[in-house]
């Protein structure tokens, strides 16, 4: 599937079916015991509250005509007792169900988040971030009630319905059929709108997803937008997306509201029919008046649970539109994962071998073809070559961010596809081109490289990368709060912080991908001195455009044309008078 944009609806690959519901049941089943308890409490509470009309009936029929004031007081006391007991039971049920509902969505959300952690870069590259975010937070919230109280109420209403039906048939079979006659009509109406209603809610979830994606992008891209003073045009796009959402919402409501409308009217029609049929067509002699009276009240009572059920059904259909998105995300295949019996990568010395490696992001479009090289522990390697030649790809493969199409990558003779990702990546230090800063203190950001690092260790790492000085210039020093987009830090300072973060991890293999591109020459020079010390004994891969950085490496590999075109030390490559030589002299000529 092509990359998704903010204004493109995501097609649902698989239609919702009972399988999805069964998956939701997995979460519900974990809460089986409390749910059964809650169900029993509800049933008890309902049963007890049924006694109130009986008491009232008795008082009217017996106590009042007898003018027994004391008895009346007694009955009132009893009624109060039933109310208190049934309300109390209902409260306990609600207490239980609050926990159950929250726990269920807690579990779903946790699973969703865990799964997201395992999904490859490609998943994140392929869709706007806002669309992922809304699933984890908003969608999960939206299904909470349906998956907890919804289910209990559903069962309760069905039990209720069966009870009423039983009473109804006990009183009169023929009139019972009159009451039931409304059901087929109801089902036909449901059938007619079911599909449309589902589509409508799917459209609502799609449109809200688009709206959110655009919103999030607008917030992240605010700087660019303001720069190009494109606010008004963006407003136009946002207005269109908000309008689409509103339209779909109203459409969904149109179908939703049809259901209570039909049930209400069917219920009235059936009640009228009881009067008409009971009083006019059936012979009055075998139809006592009490029967008709009872049946007319049963007609209303029979349709009440149906109305409640159809409201539950409405909520369910609505929740399904979100549930299927949640499960779709959970079903997203994890392409880079530990093999079943993955071993732990032993502490690494730092030999890296590429053995006939071919790689493609998209099948058929090879980025790298049949690359082979061997690097000894402790060597420093510079990767140079034109932009987009695949330098970053080479280093990404070492950390197994992607699976290779064929060949093998070995670290200390251990195939990296056979070891756990955690053991592999935790021994590598990778500094990426984008230096992402989490919101929090500078201290926390550096500590991300080694979670249990002491403050001294953090400061030492910052000193090594020449970041200590500027950090101390802030009023709160290392405790200065920074965030993702904030302009408190310059780009160069961000790079230094993420550099410190990488060093703190004390990796055996260090990968620096344009790590110093935004850092000025003087700071870089200071950095270099500290670094040389730190690089000792570590294998390092450095991608850089500045030849002054490149030159000092043990070996330089020129990446181009899907492979390593040249490889050797600076002097060797210069002597070769090939691509590197050209690159080198280009810089020389230019300045």
């Amino acid at each position: 599937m092509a990359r998704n944009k903010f204004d493109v609806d995501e097609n649902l690959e698989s239609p919702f079916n009972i399988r999805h519901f069964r998956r939701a049941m997995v979460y519900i089943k974990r809460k089986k015991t409390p749910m059964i308890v809650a169900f029993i409490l509800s049933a008890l509470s309902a049963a007890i509250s049924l006694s109130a009309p009986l008491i009232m009936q008795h008082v009217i029929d017996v106590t009042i005509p007898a003018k027994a004031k004391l008895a009346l007081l007694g009955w009132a006391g009893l009624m109060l007792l039933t109310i208190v007991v049934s309300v109390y039971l209902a409260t306990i049920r609600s207490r239980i169900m609050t926990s159950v509902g929250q726990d269920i969505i807690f579990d779903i959300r946790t699973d969703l988040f865990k799964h997201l952690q395992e999904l490859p870069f490609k998943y994140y590259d392929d869709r706007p971030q806002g669309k992922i975010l809304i699933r984890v937070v908003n969608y999960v919230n939206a299904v909470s009630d349906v998956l907890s109280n919804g289910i209990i109420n559903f069962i309760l209403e069905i039990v209720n319905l069966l009870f009423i039906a039983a009473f109804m048939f006990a009183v009169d079979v023929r009139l019972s059929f009159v009451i039931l006659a409304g059901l087929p009509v109801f089902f036909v109406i449901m059938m007619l709108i079911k599909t449309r209603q589902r589509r409508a809610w799917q459209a609502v979830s799609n449109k809200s997803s688009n709206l959110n994606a655009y919103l999030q992008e607008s917030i992240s891209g605010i700087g660019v937008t303001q720069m190009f003073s494109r606010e008004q045009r963006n407003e136009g796009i946002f207005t269109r997306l908000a309008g689409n959402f509103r339209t779909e919402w109203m459409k969904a409501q149109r179908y939703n509201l049809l259901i209570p409308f039909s049930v209400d009217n069917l219920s009235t029609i059936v009640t009228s029919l009881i009067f008409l049929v009971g009083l006019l067509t059936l012979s009055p002699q075998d139809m006592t008046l009490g029967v008709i009276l009872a049946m007319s009240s049963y007609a209303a009572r029979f349709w009440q649970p149906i109305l409640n059920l159809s409201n539950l059904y409405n909520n369910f259909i609505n929740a399904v539109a979100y549930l299927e998105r949640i499960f779709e995300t959970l079903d997203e295949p994890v392409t880079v994962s530990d093999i079943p019996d993955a071993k732990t990568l032993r502490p690494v010395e730092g030999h890296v071998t590429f053995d006939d490696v071919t790689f493609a992001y998209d099948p058929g479009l090879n980025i790298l073809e049949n690359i082979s090289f061997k690097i000894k522990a402790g060597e420093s390697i510079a990767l140079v070559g034109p932009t987009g030649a695949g330098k970053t790809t080479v280093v990404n493969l070492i950390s197994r961010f992607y699976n290779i199409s064929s060949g093998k990558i070995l670290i200390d003779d251990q195939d990296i596809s056979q070891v756990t990702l955690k053991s592999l990546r935790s021994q590598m230090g990778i500094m990426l081109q984008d230096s992402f800063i989490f919101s929090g203190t500078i201290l926390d950001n550096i500590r991300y490289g080694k979670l249990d690092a002491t403050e001294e260790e953090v400061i030492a790492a910052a000193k090594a990368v020449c970041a200590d000085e500027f950090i101390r210039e802030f009023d709160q020093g290392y405790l200065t709060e920074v965030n993702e987009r904030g302009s408190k830090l310059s780009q160069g300072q961000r790079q230094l912080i993420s550099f410190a973060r990488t060093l703190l991890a004390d990796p055996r293999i260090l990968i620096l991908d344009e790590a110093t591109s935004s850092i000025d020459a003087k700071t870089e020079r200071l950095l270099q001195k500290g670094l040389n010390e730190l690089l000792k004994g570590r294998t390092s891969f450095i991608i850089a455009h500045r030849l002054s950085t490149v030159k000092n490496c043990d070996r330089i590999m020129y990446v181009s044309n899907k492979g390593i075109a040249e490889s050797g030390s600076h002097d060797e490559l210069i002597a070769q008078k090939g691509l590197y030589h050209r690159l080198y002299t280009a810089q020389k000529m230019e300045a």
Partner: protein
Amino acid sequence: MKEQTETGDQMFELKWLWQNLEGNRTRYILALCLSVVGSSLTIVNPYISQRIVDTFIAGDSALQNLTQERQLLIMLCLGMIGFSLLRTGLAYFTTMQYEQSSQNMMYNIRIFLYNKIQGQDREYYDRNRTGDLMTKMTGDLDMVRHSMAWIFKTIIESLTIFIAAVIYFFTIDAQLTLWMLILSPPIFIVAYIFAKRVRPMYIDLRERLSQLNTTTQENISGNRVVKAFAREEFEVQKFTEKNVNYSTANKKAALVWLDYFPFLESFAQGFNVILMLAGGLFLMNGRITFGEFTAFSSLIWAISNPMRNIGIIINDIQRFFASLSKIIDIYYAKPNIVNEHTSTNKRRYEGRIEFDHVRFKYDSAIVLDDVSFTVEPGETIAIMGSTGSGKTTIINLIPRFYDVAEGRVLVDGVDVRKLELDELRDNIGMATQDVLLFSDTIDGNIAYGDPDLPEEDAISFAELAAAHDFITKMPEGYDTVVGERGVGLSGGQKQRIALARALAVRRPILILDDTTSAVDLETEEHIQKSLRELDYPCTKIIIAQRVSTTAQADRILILDNGKLVEEGTHAELLAKRGYYYDVFKLQNEGIGRQVTASGKE
């Protein structure tokens, strides 16, 4: 005192809501009125059915009526169906009006807020996290919509039914009615106490939701870093903490509700007990008739249900206010730098830039200190300096992303604070270090500043930015959709697209903030050549770390710690043997290049 301000706030918030209902007020009031009518109608059908029972089943002359008044029976039944259709049809229509007007209101507020967010200055974004803003624009906004569509509807309907029933009861028997109402004050008191206690919980709850949103959002944005450090477990831990907090806060608020629910619910059901007791005694005393007692008993739900709803309403209302105040925060957030978007006739500037004794502070730290320089139209200026020396700040002051603390920044001789912001920014093309692309096609990204740009032009600008070659190698060329933040492209590729985007607007002032840092040298040379040969007049300000980039500039400014320390051409600065000379030496060390190497004299 505190209470007063709280009520005051709420009045203000409701007024705010009313203002935003502008354009939908008629519809909303119509819906409220129809609610009143509709809920009154609920009493009609029980009445008809009562009449049928009285006339044809239970009454003394029932059998006689049944044979003689069949017509009436059929009429009553049809009437019942007719009223039902009328009432449900009305309810359908009314609910649609609520939905429509609340949706319209949300739509209006949403767009207003969107513009508000777009119009905020950089300082605002330094303070507010994406996740927070997202929470306000999604969860909070929906809570307000929910209130308009549902809570107020429930309030009005409950109230109508309650009042109608009480009036009806009064016409039957005032004393019994008063006895019944004895339960109302305790209900109100309990509801009031509940409201007081639950309000801070909902404020807390939505704060937790916001934190959950922020943590998740940052995890998604920073997913590459997470994987690079194999920090998945740590992230799950961090997330779980927020997830637990949110879940706990949810439970806590619900449990507070459940502390009060038994009282409210028992009171509501207690109406039956009162009726039985008081009504029963009155019946025994002969104060009321049996029929009157039945009338009370058949309509008792009309006063107990509204009382029962009070708790639910209060619950939702507190959530509503917690969300509403957050939205109003954005609504009234005033940026220091306001873009009015009023300029209709945008002039094209010549491109003269002047910094006049500019000082700039960030928080309390001085970032720029007494910086003065002038750039003539068409000149190319390079800025160099150590990390954090204030280079980016200088260029951020030109399009007025920030305002100076002292001194002036002038464009074409006019203080930027006196220029129309839209016009000013429309005269500047800028490519920044932190390249941000949008999830759109490459063509769409290049044309971001000028959406009507023909594709041929996009291609020619991509050629200038040395991006055309790699773009055509992509499977779908210019129609390739790049992910948000341009993921899927290398750093150098992103920079070149951003450069093409900045060139494509053909502005008289072009600012490049280290835009070629991740580009290899050969490519950079091509870009430098393009920049020299642009087919439109243009003042260029280029921040760069590489001497190879700065050498060709008309003038080079060296910044150190917020101060302008050196200024001159490549040759002049080399001759000075200062900062620039040092950098030059560092970058060419060992390459054997001579200090007198070619550059602008």
